[in-house]
């Protein structure tokens, strides 16, 4: 017998199951999006370059970061998390990645921007191998969805150098 309570239960469970399916389809629709982001980072100034008391090198630099990440946003995007990392090689480690700056882009309108900033997080080496070092600056992004799968990718920019001597 399909009483009031039975029908109410059936409707609620069926509607929630369909809701889950809709969210899955919404997430799958993100694969239809082909993003075409662009970014550019200029190092305006090396503020200082010292060897710390512990023996590790540290750099402070001012960067100009400009990017157009609007094509990353879809209808199912909640926010995009971006960060800039310096990548280089040392005798001790084959790959070092140091995060210098990050931000959250909450909406498509804010995704085309430029910012003039010093590094938000300290650029410290494990050791003292930074003098004259050539490094890459990589802009990473994580597209966080409203529901479903998160996409992450990056742009690698090469050809940056640190000074030969401490300043």
């Amino acid at each position: 017998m399909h009483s009031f309570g039975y029908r109410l239960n059936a409707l609620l469970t069926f509607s929630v199951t369909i809701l889950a399916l809709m969210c899955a389809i919404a997430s799958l629709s993100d694969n239809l999006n082909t993003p075409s982001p662009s970014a550019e980072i200029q190092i305006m100034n090396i503020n200082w370059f010292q060897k710390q008391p512990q023996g590790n090198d540290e750099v402070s630099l001012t960067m100009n970061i400009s990017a157009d990440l609007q094509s990353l946003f879809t209808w199912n995007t909640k926010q995009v998390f971006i960060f800039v990392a310096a990548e280089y090689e040392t005798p001790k480690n084959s790959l070092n990645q140091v995060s210098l700056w990050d931000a959250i882009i909450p909406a498509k309108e804010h995704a085309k921007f430029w910012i003039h900033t010093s590094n938000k997080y300290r650029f410290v080496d494990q050791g003292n191998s930074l003098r004259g070092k050539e490094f890459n600056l990589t802009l990473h992004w994580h597209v966080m969805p409203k529901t479903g799968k998160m996409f992450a990718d990056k742009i690698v920019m090469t050809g940056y150098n640190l000074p030969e001597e401490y300043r």
Partner: protein
Amino acid sequence: MGLFNYILLLYEPQRRAGIIMLMDWQGQKFVEQIMQISLLVFAVIALVAGYVLGSFHLMMLVYAGGVTLTTLITVPNWPFFNRNPLNWLDPNEVEKHHKPQVAVSLKKKATQK
């Protein structure tokens, strides 16, 4: 008040038989079909509207509206779904006709070759 009494009258035969059944069998089947189809249709409409207009929020609103509308149509016991009420046997009639007794005979053996 009159409407309430009218509805009570509708269920009189069932009430006397001691059964609470506010939607007949055909009504139940019909309503279940309405519910499933309506929810699926609203889900599709919501998905398409949300994707085309680029608004996740819109999809949720359309679907929520669809669920509410479907609930209003299918969950309450509308009289419309009770148009073929079954005629339940009157309790007085039941007493007149006792259930047949099952003959229990342990000694009876079927002897067949």
